[in-house]
């Protein structure tokens, strides 16, 4: 029965990793570089949500405020930095994104200190489902994550801008001669990437604490999930995030809290040995 609890925790952790990994894989597939600022965008979302939650105590308002603030930050990053570096090598953009990450973290640290802040959530009686205690907050957070993922996949696969994003990811030169507006696609990409990391930040903040370093610590598992899922594959990123999250939690009784991340990486390495392009990877772009 305790393993069911671990699986439940793993799914919650996996959804956070999966949302961040989806943001990373979208940027990689369309803007063609690994965005190391994704973790600190997540932290920013956690802070934005914290202040909204303190003011409203509404999960919906918290989620929407975090999305609005982080999506705007993401758009600002694009216009201020990444758009100006368009056409440079992926390494240049990666280094720029590391610089942006440090700037976000520094501003958050200077503004709110390096202490740990918490969402002051009222304790609620857990549901007992098949003998397993399920927190209502966990259910609500999972619901928010699934709604966010459904909205993101809906945008990607059922709308004009989503088709255009996938077209740019597939063949950016062809997209240009087909009349697809590159600026609009990029702006939409960064808004979407910001929204995804915002919800991940709120979930992580509610499940643990809010501090300037929380995003940095989740960045490596998120990158791992993006690679494990098949870089550029949105579905793969989410699936891999869930697998890594559950693997981490299930390994905790065996290896302890400190080494559980290592186990999830071992699982990732084992899969990549047999499937080098990852779970859903066909090529290096969003499909």
């Amino acid at each position, binding site marked *: 029965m305790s393993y069911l609890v671990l699986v439940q925790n793993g799914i919650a952790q996996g959804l956070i990793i999966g949302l961040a990994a989806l943001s990373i894989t979208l940027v990689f597939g369309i803007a063609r570089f690994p965005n190391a600022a994704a973790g600190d965008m997540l932290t920013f979302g956690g802070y934005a949500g914290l202040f909204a939650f303190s003011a409203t105590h509404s999960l919906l308002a918290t989620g929407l405020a975090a999305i609005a603030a982080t999506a705007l930050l993401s758009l600002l990053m694009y216009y201020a930095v990444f758009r100006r570096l368009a056409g440079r090598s992926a390494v240049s953009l990666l280094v720029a994104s590391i610089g942006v990450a440090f700037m976000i973290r520094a501003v958050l640290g200077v503004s709110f200190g390096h202490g740990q802040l918490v969402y002051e959530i009222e304790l609620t009686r857990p549901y007992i489902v098949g003998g397993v205690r399920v927190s209502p907050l966990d259910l609500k957070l999972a619901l928010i994550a699934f709604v966010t993922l459904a909205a993101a996949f809906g945008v990607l696969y059922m709308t004009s801008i989503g088709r255009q994003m*996938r*077209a740019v990811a597939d063949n950016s030169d062809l997209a240009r001669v087909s009349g697809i507006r590159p600026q609009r696609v990029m702006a939409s990409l960064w808004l979407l990437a910001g929204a995804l990391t915002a919800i991940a930040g709120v979930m992580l903040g509610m499940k643990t604490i809010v501090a300037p370093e929380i995003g940095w610590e989740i960045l490596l598992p998120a990158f791992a999930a993006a690679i494990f899922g098949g870089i550029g594959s949105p579905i793969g990123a989410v699936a891999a995030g869930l697998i890594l999250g559950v693997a981490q939690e299930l390994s905790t009784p065996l290896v302890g809290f400190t080494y559980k991340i290592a186990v999830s990486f071992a699982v990732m390495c084992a899969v990549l040995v047999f499937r080098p392009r990852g779970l859903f990877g066909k090529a290096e772009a969003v499909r």
Partner: protein
Amino acid sequence: MNAITHHNAIVADRGASGAPPVLEVERISKHFGGFCALNDVSLSVPAGGLVGLIGPNGAGKSTLFSIITGFIAPSEGTIRLRGSPVDTLSPFARARAGMVRTFQVPREFSHLSVRENLMAAIPDQAGEHLFDLFFKPQQVRIQEEQGAALVEETVDFLKLKRIADLPAVKLSGGQKKLLELGRVLMTRPSVILLDEPFSGVNPVLIAEIIDRIIELNERGISFLVIEHDLEALTRLVGRLTVMDYGTVIAEGAPQAVLADARVRAAYLGGPA
């Protein structure tokens, strides 16, 4: 008028002589370092015209296409679309202005379905704006339905319906050429530049592609076509321009141009 004369008259009309030009290439030169790829090239495509562009490999035809569509900047010269210079416009902006191209080796959004390839190229959709997706869903839905209807018309027109849900990567070479034609049609073009539309295509599909091009031309779309298959090209175009070593060496009615001694020497291997 016998059948052959009648056919020649129809084909000659596709040169649309006398019509104002929709596309004008004026004195274009292009140097790559010390190499001169294009030297003072001028040509025009009349509104409603169907013009062929031929020349041996390396004559500069594809470079000229890349300059016309904005992928390469010319060293000198001007491109005009419906009388206005487009030299400062990006490839995307030129496509939006009504000038689109296909490629010698067909290009497609490989992992999007045939329908999605076509839908992606529809311009000015409300669904391109994230804001509208969430705050004007009704307008987005109506435009999506209109776009889907246009795509259905196009897949019917190009006879791609049977494979419309397949990822484009699974199409044959000829089907990809038709898909390219469909994709450029979705942009509502006034002039289409076709780069070797019959290359690697079986004769049945070549006939299909020719029929579709003629039908589109009759609807008012102008064409500039690079092609090495002279038999197919002369069935299609009303005017021919011939390039060699980066310059235009002849232009005019296809039969007259192909009989030109310089053309025979440069391109057809005949005596000058």
